[in-house]
């Protein structure tokens, strides 16, 4: 894992001291709320429905056991005992007191963490493939470049007041687990014809009010040029992105307004200038130095046989939550934070402590947060899986549903969020309960349901095979269905079915849509493939069949 150097450590300490003083001045009346609000947001502190919410950055979704224990500590000491892992690979605490925040940030700094750039119109926390460094299909671990981007973008003076927020994702595999094409900018590690690794750069993707799939703006950028290229994209955006209309301020609007060819032309012009200046060229020793922090553990020479257990439920978990590792004898284990009827992404302090203990016991140095709101143990000895499963079961963290219909992404919605129009979590709970039967889940196969409580799309509804968007009609919650979205390498934006459903009707409507799929599917195709083959009509006909009331 990356470790802070003296500059990182000093910088974070200074920011804690600054914010402590800012809070003091706010409480003493020297700062008004209008003056203070941008300062607290720069430190990840929002005011939500019930209290302040603190969003803590988890760079590229990687945590050590010590850092995970700190989250448990914060949940216990300063919150109500739990935290919420988000689709941005961050963690949020929902019940924070303003007066406690300086102490929380000081505690976080002791484990090399902070809440910077988790809000505001800056380059946000960089996200990455949660299987990074472990996936069998990976060209290179994407986290070294993610860390380099993090260092480059942290309090970068030119990019602290962008037209709007800016999200960057990185991946090193052809199979996209990081939703690259739905980010403002994304970096995919690819190989050229000569077999050298470099970067394909995407820009202009995004969800929210106006969803777009990102475009390739750089086919193959050499490693030493990558920061110069990314800075060129940022410069074009910073100069031409709209600042007059918050709804048109993201880079996706710019790219689609001027067209991808013009965008590329402008990027190339800036890139040539920055490259010629030479100040942003990445020296190989520096790349090597950062890469060394992410060196894989010393793998043992182990049998690659599938592990067995006397516990008959183990095989379900093995089948669904364990993925192929690049090293024989090892596996990647997904820890579902989607218990049937639970809150997607929530983890209790005891669970976090228990996981940290498990990591120590089995020599697992790091854990990942996935954008699908699950946790991942990236390097597990296959022979340890039965024992780990047993411990996960005791922690109520062994739900065998990764990638299945009950593995639902849901934003906090109107249960917590000040921006929300409708609740998301109860809809996720209702749907999960309808499909609780594991045989039925296995029969349905891969199906990604994603739910957002407002148009801002934190629940990635545009990218759901089945997406659900909560809307407000005169103070009452309604839910629109979207079908056919994907956040993977076959990225697409879901199509809106039609009028919204009531909170009571949306679950049955989803069930009818899925039953329709089961009738229509051919050759074990996924829901998404069936939808792409047959289109909206048959699903729409069934979805509205027994509906009691539709919003128009």
């Amino acid at each position: 894992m990356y470790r802070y150097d003296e500059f990182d450590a000093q910088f974070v300490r200074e920011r804690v001291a600054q914010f402590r003083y800012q809070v003091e001045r706010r409480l003493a009346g020297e700062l008004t709320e209008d003056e203070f609000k941008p300062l607290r947001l720069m430190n990840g502190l929002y005011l939500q429905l019930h209290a302040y919410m603190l969003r803590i950055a988890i760079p590229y979704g990687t945590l050590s056991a010590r850092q995970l224990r700190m989250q448990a500590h914060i949940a216990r000491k300063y919150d109500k005992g739990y935290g919420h892992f988000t689709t941005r690979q961050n963690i949020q605490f929902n019940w924070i007191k303003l007066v406690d925040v300086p102490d929380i940030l000081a505690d976080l700094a002791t484990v090399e963490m902070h809440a910077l750039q988790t809000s505001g119109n800056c380059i946000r926390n960089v996200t990455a493939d949660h299987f990074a460094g472990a996936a069998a299909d990976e060209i290179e671990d994407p986290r070294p470049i993610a860390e380099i981007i993090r260092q480059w973008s942290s309090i970068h003076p030119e990019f602290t007041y962008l037209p709007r927020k800016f999200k960057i994702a990185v991946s090193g595999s052809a199979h996209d687990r990081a939703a690259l094409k739905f980010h403002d900018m994304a970096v995919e590690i690819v190989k050229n014809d000569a077999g050298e690794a470099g970067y394909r750069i995407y820009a202009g993707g995004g969800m929210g009010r106006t969803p777009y799939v990102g475009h390739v703006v750089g086919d193959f950028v050499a490693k030493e040029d990558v920061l110069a290229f990314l800075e060129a994209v940022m410069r074009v955006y910073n100069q031409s992105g709209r600042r007059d209309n918050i709804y048109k301020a993201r880079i996706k609007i710019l790219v689609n307004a001027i067209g991808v060819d013009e965008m590329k032309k402008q990027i190339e012009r800036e890139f040539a200038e920055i490259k010629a200046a030479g100040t942003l060229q990445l020296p190989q020793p520096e790349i090597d130095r950062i890469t060394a922090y992410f060196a894989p553990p010393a793998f043992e020479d182990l049998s690659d046989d599938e592990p067995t257990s006397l516990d008959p439920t183990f095989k379900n978990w093995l089948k669904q939550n364990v993925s192929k590792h690049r090293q024989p004898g090892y596996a990647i284990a997904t820890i579902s934070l989607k218990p049937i009827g639970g809150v997607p992404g929530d983890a209790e302090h005891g669970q976090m402590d228990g996981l940290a203990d498990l990591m120590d016991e089995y020599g697992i140095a790091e854990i990942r947060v996935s954008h699908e709101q699950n946790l991942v143990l990236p390097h597990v000895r296959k022979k340890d899986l039965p024992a780990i499963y047993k411990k996960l079961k005791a922690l109520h963290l062994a739900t065998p549903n990764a990638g299945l219909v009950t593995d639902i992404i849901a934003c906090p919605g109107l249960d917590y969020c000040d921006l929300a129009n409708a609740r998301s979590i109860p809809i996720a709970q209702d749907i999960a309960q309808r499909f609780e039967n594991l045989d039925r889940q296995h029969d349905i196969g891969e199906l990604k349901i994603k739910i957002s409580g407002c148009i801002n799309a934190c629940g990635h509804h545009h990218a759901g095979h089945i997406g659900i968007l909560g809307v407000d009609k005169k103070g009452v919650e309604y839910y629109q269905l979207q079908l056919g979205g994907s956040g993977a390498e076959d990225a697409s934006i879901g199509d809106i079915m039609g009028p919204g459903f009531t909170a009571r009707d949306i679950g049955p409507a989803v069930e009818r849509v899925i039953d329709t799929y089961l009738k229509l599917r051919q050759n074990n195709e996924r829901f998404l493939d069936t939808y792409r083959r047959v289109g909206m009509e048959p699903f729409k006909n069934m979805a509205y069949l027994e509906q009691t009331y539709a919003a128009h």
Partner: protein
Amino acid sequence: MAATPALQVLTANRLRDGDVVYWRDGEWTDHFADADVFDGKTTADAALAAAQAFVKGRVVVNPYLFGVREEDGRIRAIEEREIVRSEGPSVRRDLGKQAMDSFDVQI
């Protein structure tokens, strides 16, 4: 803009801890059930104006009025958002105002 609701309650968040508070008789209470209910625009706006002193005094942030209605002899927020604020998360009935000992269940 929607028409002003016939009945309104004044709310804010407490600066120090962010807790939801309601206006009652020139002060703030944690309990929605205790809140003053204004049946006229003049009295509601006067309370909102008076609340500004508490903003200046660093007690609360963001005071605003919202619509309520009488239902089975009880006052209830019209919009879901204010129902959730006055009770707590609907998915965690053990947390928020609904979990306070003195909470008067509004069903």
